[in-house]
């Protein structure tokens, strides 16, 4: 004990001496004898004291997705993609979370005091809850991604925001839907639910009871505060790992029914082929390198931490591999932090760039053992079975980025 303490005293003494030396060196550069301060200050205001704001030097923003204006000619918000190229960690800030809407929508401005959630249909006890009552029920807080079915990369896309920006991840808080359904008492034959929002188009989706009773969350919290209006304030449904449109926003009503209801949201995502329907419902293992990614510029050869996001609707990410030679050799990337089920997972890879042209890719394997395919592999799987040459369902194929010798990075989908 005594010797440890004296070691620590020794260390502190030497540490102070060392720090002093470094400081002296820096001070010597300042003619006035004082360190230079920042060039400018952000004026304190009541508004900034109340609710903070990011630096004016940080300009990362969302963009309309898929070539459709947002807001469109009618003033409706349509699909908006998150700037994954600037993302760090796994949380998408609420202001940058991707947004999708049923038909294009005005964002409802809902008074939570007046908002109600009704559960009815094939139940023993139809129930109406106020927001206050929902918040009194046992809650869960979980990390989950939401990804739009339209998150499909093509060769014309330039950046990762265009190829993959219709996915985001947040920490969601709310009541398990199963808690509410058990309170209502689902009757025999109640095999589906219809979940409905209050926006102008009253978007509704049909969800199978097996999923509804498993891990769906009726959320009032997002990233430590109330769900944002664009994300469904005051209440949204979270259907972890399933296609985005099922995550009904501005949730007002859940009806337990006996069949798939073919409501408008369901019609909009109708498939002709049953494999397509299955592969579109639950998201497959997927990953993408966000740095370096399309449109970015490497300043020169040397060390880089390659970084990216991996996720799967099948559960947690089990493994991420990276290639720097276009898929000839793969090495394991490091998973940063905890790989949560159905959540974005940050991976990194230490890379020494030699300044030569090369191609970077990442490949995700989830806990079910499903592996992210290359586009060629996915297409080959179907053509060998006499099917059309395309990636079926939700496209989870590997994204290639080409780094040219001048350091510029490009989408390498051919």
């Amino acid at each position, binding site marked *: 004990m005594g010797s440890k303490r004296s070691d620590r005293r020794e260390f502190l003494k030497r540490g102070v001496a060392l720090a002093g030396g470094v400081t002296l060196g820096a001070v010597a550069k300042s003619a006035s004898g004082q360190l230079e301060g920042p060039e400018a200050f952000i004026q304190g205001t009541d508004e900034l004291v109340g609710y903070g704001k990011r630096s004016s030097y940080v300009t990362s923003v969302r963009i309309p997705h898929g070539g459709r204006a947002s807001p469109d*000619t*009618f003033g409706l918000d349509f699909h908006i993609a998150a700037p994954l190229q600037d993302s760090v960690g796994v949380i998408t800030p609420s202001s940058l979370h991707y947004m999708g809407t049923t*038909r294009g929508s005005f964002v409802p401005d809902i008074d939570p005091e007046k908002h109600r959630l*009704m559960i*009815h249909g094939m139940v023993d*006890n*139809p*129930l*109406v*809850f106020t927001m206050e*009552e929902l918040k*009194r*029920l046992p809650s869960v807080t979980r990390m989950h991604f939401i990804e739009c079915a339209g998150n499909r990369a093509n060769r014309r896309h330039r950046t990762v925001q265009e190829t993959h920006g219709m996915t985001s991840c947040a920490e969601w808080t709310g009541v398990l839907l199963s808690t509410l359904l058990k*309170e*209502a008492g689902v009757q025999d034959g109640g*095999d589906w639910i*219809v979940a*409905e929002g209050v926006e*102008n*188009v*009253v978007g*509704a989706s*049909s969800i*199978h009871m*097996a*999923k509804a009773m*498993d*891990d769906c969350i009726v959320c009032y919290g997002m990233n430590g505060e109330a769900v944002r209006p664009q994300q469904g304030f005051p209440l949204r449904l979270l259907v972890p790992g399933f296609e985005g449109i099922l995550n009904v926003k501005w949730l*007002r*009503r859940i*009806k337990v*029914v006996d*069949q798939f*209801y*073919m*409501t*408008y949201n369901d*019609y909009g995502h*109708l*498939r*002709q082929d*049953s*494999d397509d*329907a*299955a*592969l579109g*419902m*639950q*998201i*497959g*293992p997927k990953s993408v390198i966000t740095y370096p990614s399309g449109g970015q510029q490497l300043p020169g050869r040397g060390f880089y931490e390659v970084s990216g996001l991996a996720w799967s*609707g099948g559960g947690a990410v089990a493994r991420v591999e990276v290639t720097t030679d276009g898929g000839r050799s793969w090495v394991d990337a490091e998973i940063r932090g905890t790989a949560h089920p159905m959540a974005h997972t940050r991976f990194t890879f230490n890379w020494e760039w030699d300044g030569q042209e090369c191609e970077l890719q990442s490949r995700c394997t989830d806990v*079910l053992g*499903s*592996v*992210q395919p290359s586009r060629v*592999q*996915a297409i080959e*799987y179907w053509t060998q079975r006499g099917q059309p040459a395309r990636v079926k*369902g939700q496209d989870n194929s590997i994204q290639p980025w080409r780094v040219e010798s001048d350091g510029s990075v490009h989408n390498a989908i051919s």
Partner: protein
Amino acid sequence: MRFLRLLLPLPLMLGISVQAQSPTYGLGRTPSAEEIRAWDISISPTGEELPAGSGSVGEGSQLYLEKACAGCHGTTGTGGPAPRLVKRDVGPDAGPWALGRVLPIRAPYATAVWDFINRGMPLYQEGTLSADEVYALTAYLLFLNDVVEEGTVLDAQSLPKVEMPNRDTWAPLPEWWRPGMSRLPSYPY
């Protein structure tokens, strides 16, 4: 056994004492039948929730102009800034999937057409159409797409019986799926 005896009566007692609320937590309240009727706009493919009322193709063609549908969708159901409402002309042998993503032709059930007009149209005035008007507009759009005859009148009985060309050519969501399963067993990706 003692453990079970201690646990079981609790939810039962709560259920009996607060019947108007949720059985375990005693929260929420029972909605009146009137409240449920007012909120429940769902329409199943079998049409069981369809309201009384009726509308004809002729009435629908008038309403299409009066309700400003034509302003966004075009006077002939195409050519406006909003999605087209008439099938594409791709020849007589084309299957329903080749006719475009056009609600009144691709929808497998006519109830889905009724449902969307009822809940989502017209833009800026959603939810203002009467049941008669929705029946009439549905009839008109189905007529424009050669699904029903010009003299058709639709109501709660006839609408679910309309034979949509895509009725049996769509893939249902997988009902075999259970938590913990991959999205398509046998598919390695």
